């Protein structure tokens, strides 16, 4: 169940060290947190953190440009975590029904949102949660905007988008599809009937170029083309198709054309291969699917044969950007080339369609763009706001979502105070580079790659290319996360500078600075060992705290009170359980009734007091399942866990506990979790 208590305004305190993935994300998704929950196979909770700032988990998990991965510090060791694919994995596991709670309408005011793309629906979602009545107007038959009509099923299946939208609308948002503003209803009526209006119509018009031959038969434009294919009103447009443009939309168009059966698709763009605005992984997919890419060429003339497109003549580009980095292409004076083609699709940029504002008090500038305050996103008409691509220009879906959040905050602020929202730029500072010595101490581990269907098979239809992670793959991938920023912090009032942390840290991070220990978050790997060992209880490890072991013990104590017979609690290493013959998620519900499992990312974070706490909670038997020696994720975590077990065993035997009250059951190839639990109970 996704809680209503959402964080529509992410608060970052200046001293907080953000995981770089979080700092890089336009909506500041706490990726580190949901990835660590996946590493512990807790998908419901993972979804909660994903949805805290992103109401489109299924869609964004498939199409996000994932700046988080570019920032991921695992990339400094080997390769970044597949964060985006892990987000999608959570959606795959949950099955798309997030059971949204109905938002309570607590305010009298109503808001109209024009456009149901990622920006408009995000704003609608937030505003509904803030207590407003929200209506969304969409000119198409279905909601989703560019996610619906600009992206084909092979990247984002309509069903998955439908799930996201159903969950968003499920909070209590009125959606009016097939309603075009300025045609079915006037803008002034909408403005009159509502306390605020948000324009989130995106950039829905594809631009062309005034080239000779641009009026020939066989000329198409990217967005109408993609929309028509999506609506299945378009089929194959030619055997030898030329796509003009080098951005992501151009790549999408080219890949779509291939799927429609065109034998040859050539992309032509001004930029060199390195300068192409399309993402590398998109280009890679296109190349795999047989798309040809012709870089550093500018279209000069469309060649006509009997009124029909016959090819393209283009000029060689000397450079695309000037010395100041501005787009200012220069062409070679003479070098020209021709390629053949029976259709041309322009995918060179998009424009806005805001004719419905004609006659309203919403001003546009001399370039036909909305006149907008960048902080409040307010137009010249104080209760009319804009968000998404119409406000900021072309961008990724996640940026549109971020813009939707901001618009919602701004509208709420304006309706509550009568004043425009000011500059609320928060400083998002991610942790800097991992220190050299720490890097040397971190084990390398290979990134799990998203499995895809074969390039040849892909072209047969519009089936989704990415297959999705299996549970094992996803959990292994998530376990590569360095848990940046979830590590140790020292309570300086309690620290006694005993040097324990300095001595036990497998990554050599803690240092005594002045009279107390300092554990630099830049290097800390969140293994939790110092926290478990510190004799003064002066170290709190965020990730250990997130394991909620104390509250689990309280919960278990209550459960145990209700049952009779022998009871056991097992502490299991989540890294080590990947060696076992079955996974924790597989055995949940099948364990003997009186056995409770507490999982941890490395048992090095389990303290003596936690083990004793398990006995206090009512366990007759407690068992530790550390990873097999020599395979410890944190080098010494399992060794310390084993030693603690010996220490506690001795202590228990001195007070009358039987020898096997505390047992160690290392995880190895083929360890049976259920069998082990049964044996522990039996002995």
């Amino acid at each position, binding site marked *: 169940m996704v809680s209503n208590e959402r964080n529509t305004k992410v608060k970052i305190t200046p001293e907080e060290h953000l995981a770089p993935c979080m700092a890089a994300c336009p909506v500041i998704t706490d990726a580190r947190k949901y990835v660590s929950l996946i590493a512990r196979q807790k998908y419901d909770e993972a979804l909660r953190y994903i949805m805290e700032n992103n109401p489109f988990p299924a869609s964004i998990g498939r199409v996000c440009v994932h700046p988080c991965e570019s920032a991921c510090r695992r990339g400094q060791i080997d390769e970044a975590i597949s964060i985006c694919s892990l987000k999608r994995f959570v959606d795959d596991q949950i099955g798309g029904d997030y059971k949204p709670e109905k938002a309570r309408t607590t305010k009298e005011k109503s808001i109209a949102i024009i456009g149901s793309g990622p920006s408009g629906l995000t704003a609608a979602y937030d505003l509904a949660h803030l207590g407003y009545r929200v209506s969304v107007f969409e000119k198409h038959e279905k909601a989703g905007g560019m996610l619906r009509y600009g992206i084909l099923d092979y990247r984002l299946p309509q069903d998955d988008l439908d799930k996201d939208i159903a969950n968003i609308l499920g909070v209590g948002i009125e959606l009016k599809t097939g309603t075009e503003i300025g045609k079915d209803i006037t803008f002034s009526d909408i403005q009159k009937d509502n306390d605020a209006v948000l324009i989130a119509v995106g950039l829905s018009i594809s631009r062309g170029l005034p080239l000779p031959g641009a009026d020939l038969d066989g000329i198409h434009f990217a967005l109408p083309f993609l929309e028509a294919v999506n609506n299945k009103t378009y089929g194959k447009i030619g055997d030898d198709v030329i796509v003009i443009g080098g951005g992501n939309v151009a790549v999408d168009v080219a890949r779509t054309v291939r799927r429609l059966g065109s034998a040859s698709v050539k992309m032509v763009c001004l930029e060199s291969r390195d300068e192409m605005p399309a993402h590398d992984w998109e280009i890679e997919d296109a190349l795999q699917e047989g798309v040809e890419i012709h870089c550093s060429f500018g279209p000069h003339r469309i060649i006509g044969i009997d009124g029909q497109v016959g090819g393209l003549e283009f000029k060689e580009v000397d450079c695309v950007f000037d010395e100041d980095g501005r787009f200012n292409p220069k062409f070679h004076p003479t070098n020209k080339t021709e390629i053949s083609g029976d259709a041309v699709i322009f995918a060179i940029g998009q424009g806005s369609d805001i004719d419905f504002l004609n006659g309203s008090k919403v001003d546009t500038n001399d370039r036909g763009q909305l006149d907008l305050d960048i902080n409040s996103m307010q137009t010249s008409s104080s209760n009319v706001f804009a968000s998404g691509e119409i406000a900021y220009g072309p961008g990724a879906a996640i940026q549109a979502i971020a813009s939707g959040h901001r618009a919602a905050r701004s509208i709420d602020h304006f309706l509550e105070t009568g004043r425009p929202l000011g500059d609320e730029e928060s400083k998002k500072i991610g942790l800097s580079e991992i220190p050299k010595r720490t890097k040397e101490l971190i084990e390398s581990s290979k990134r799990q790659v998203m499995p895809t269907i074969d390039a040849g098979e892909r072209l047969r239809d519009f089936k989704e290319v990415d297959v999705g992670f299996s549970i094992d793959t996803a959990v292994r991938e998530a376990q590569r996360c360095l848990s940046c920023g979830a590590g140790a912090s020292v309570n300086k009032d309690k620290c006694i500078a005993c040097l324990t942390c300095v001595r036990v840290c497998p990554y050599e991070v803690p240092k005594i600075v002045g009279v107390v220990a300092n554990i630099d978050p830049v290097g800390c790997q969140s293994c939790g060992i110092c926290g478990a060992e510190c*004799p003064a*209880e002066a170290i709190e490890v965020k990730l250990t705290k997130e394991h909620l072991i104390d509250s689990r013990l309280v919960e278990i104590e209550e459960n145990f009170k209700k049952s009779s017979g022998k009871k056991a609690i097992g502490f299991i290493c989540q890294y080590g359980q990947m060696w076992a013959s079955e996974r924790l998620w597989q055995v949940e519900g099948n364990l003997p009734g009186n056995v409770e499992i507490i999982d941890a990312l490395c048992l090095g974070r389990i303290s003596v*007091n936690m083990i004793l706490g398990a006995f206090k909670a009512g366990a007759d038997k407690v068992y530790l399942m550390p990873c097999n020696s020599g395979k410890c994720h944190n080098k010494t975590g399992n060794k310390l866990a084993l030693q603690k077990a010996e220490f506690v065993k001795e*202590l228990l035997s001195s007070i009358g506990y039987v020898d096997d009250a505390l047992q160690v059951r290392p995880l190895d190839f083929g360890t049976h979790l259920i069998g082990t639990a049964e044996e522990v109970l039996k002995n």
Partner: protein
Amino acid sequence: MIIAEQKPLREILNIIDKDKKLLVIGCGACVSICFAGGEKETKSLADGLFLGAKKEGLELSIETDMALRQCEWEFVEPLEDRVKKADAVISTACGVGVQTMAEKYPEAKIIPGLNTTSMGMPVEQGVWKEYCGGCGDCVLAFTGGLCPVARCAKSLLNGPCGGSKDGICEIGRDTECVWQLIYDRLKGQDRLELIMGNVLAKNWEPARDGGPRRTLRTDLLIRGEKDEEQK
């Protein structure tokens, strides 16, 4: 620093007898560093006692608290209310802290939770060794910085006994013969002459042999200077 270790739980359980409400007071100084009586060990001792009593069918109520240094009146003073409410107080400080508690709270039943063993240092994580015997007349200047009083089983001052073999003391493999270490170090420094002469009999009066020791700095006294000087 002072080294201590926790008493066996069984021994403490026997001492607390029928006391039901216990207060375990830890110390934030030496015994925290040697993992005997700091905040974490205080809690684990409390848990151990709870579980031990439970095994015998007794339900103990145990609270824990800390003193920054239990060997100071001022730091144990804030514990008054909690001490008064407890049937017995277990001090996980060194013997000094236990006595501070007992003197501060003469009505209370104060029980030591630790055995104080020595003055020494953590030579590595989890290993503490005795380094100082508190003899009151330090000889380290003449022994290469290695204390024969604390580190020789017999506190010999004139070189090793016949029980030194291959650098190991006859009492056990874990104990190095400190006289071998002294010899090696001084030889390395070319200062063997320091131990070549006869050593006069050590005056053991500044050590325990002169009775309980009392250290005085008259320049620091604030109250009752005259009285202190006359003592």
